[in-house]
């Protein structure tokens, strides 16, 4: 069965610096309040729990780049140092509001907002293999289907959902 493609507009916030967990939290606290955002995806460089290579392989990786942050009452375990924030919107009229938030937020370094297609909008073969024909559309594009951990969907109304790097 072919799933109908959903063509919601998407945009991507690209700061010129990689964001710390605290800055990510402050930015998302403002962004999630905007009406008309369907899904948010945080991309960035993975911060491993254990040292992945070398003689210290397997030892604990002590760092303050990997933190649990709270966004609008939802607790999210950040796995990455955030580099881009991709948003799926109800319609593109939300973008000027996002731009206004970012203009006020990014004062120490610049950023840009790109409009385009940054998330999958229909299941791939691998999605089909993992989720089957009746995959939850909200999950598609948010998370690598090969990943062992479950994806996280957080709504403003949710009280507590554990997380990966997705919102």
């Amino acid at each position, binding site marked *: 069965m072919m799933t109908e493609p959903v063509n919601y507009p998407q945009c991507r916030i690209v*700061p*010129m*610096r*990689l*964001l*710390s967990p605290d*800055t990510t939290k402050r930015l998302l606290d403002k962004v999630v309040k905007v009406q008309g955002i369907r899904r948010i995806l945080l991309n960035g*460089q*993975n*911060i*491993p729990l254990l*040292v*992945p*290579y*070398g*003689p*210290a*392989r397997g*030892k604990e*990786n*002590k*760092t*303050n*780049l990997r933190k649990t942050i709270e966004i609008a009452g939802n607790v999210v375990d950040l796995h990455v*140092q955030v*580099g881009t924030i991709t948003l799926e919107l109800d319609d593109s009229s939300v973008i000027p509001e996002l731009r206004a938030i970012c203009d006020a937020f990014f004062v*120490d*370094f610049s950023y840009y907002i790109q409009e385009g297609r940054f998330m999958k909008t229909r299941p791939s073969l691998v999605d089909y293999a993992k989720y089957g024909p009746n995959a939850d559309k909200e999950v598609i594009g948010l998370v690598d289907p090969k990943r062992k951990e479950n994806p996280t969907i957080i709504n403003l109304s949710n009280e507590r959902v554990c997380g990966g790097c997705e919102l």
Partner: protein
Amino acid sequence: MRTVTERKPQFGPGTSVVAINRRKQMDPGHKLTVMRSITDEDIVLLLGHRAPGASFKTMHPPLAEQQEPDCPMRRLVKPTEGALHGDRVRYVQFADSMFNAPCQPYQRTYAEMYRFRGIDPGTLSGRQIVECRERDLEQYCRLLIETEMFDPALVSLRGATVHGHSLRLSEDGMQFDALQRCVLGKDGMVRYVKDQIGLPLNRAVEVGKPLDQPWLREHATIFHSLVGTALRDDGEYVEYLQRIHTLRTRYGFIPREA
């Protein structure tokens, strides 16, 4: 007629500030500016090959105790201090950010080959490893960390998990490091809290304050059209690269310059 001894090496082409900086680093006759000081113990801690104060482990007896064969080459080439004592071979690896870090992997290898003896460098796009006798390594590390070839924010010692040279910088201007071996303190000092392979140190090692952007632009050894000097602005360098490219392409077809 000029003799060979009158000739001076050119080290590299180019008229831009990047080319000049590259030549300065490569020229062993040029004294590099010392920007910071670091103790012997700190270097030992950063490298993580031996405990501070521990003796050097050896891979063969000192040369003085060995029966050296009568070899003209051995009479000609004096052993380094590490080889003389029979030290084992150890390494240091640096990752250099593309955002105007004062040294870059290929440049690092060129400079080390001109300045150091008894080394075996390995050069990759974002990192450069150099192997040599442990005693020599610690001595060479001092130059690599204390002089203008190092910036605490943009250059870092990374034995493994080196990813970060081509990424955007972190908010605080530090090069991305998944293991966060060094941190920028509130006082503006950069401190290593882990050794180069990512094992936590018993005490932090201070390596100074990050250098400011104007200084980094003036001392860059990488062309970068957005944050520094563009390669195309250096006509001589472009001409040199085009010549090399042409000759390499024609190689095998009897390369001859027109």
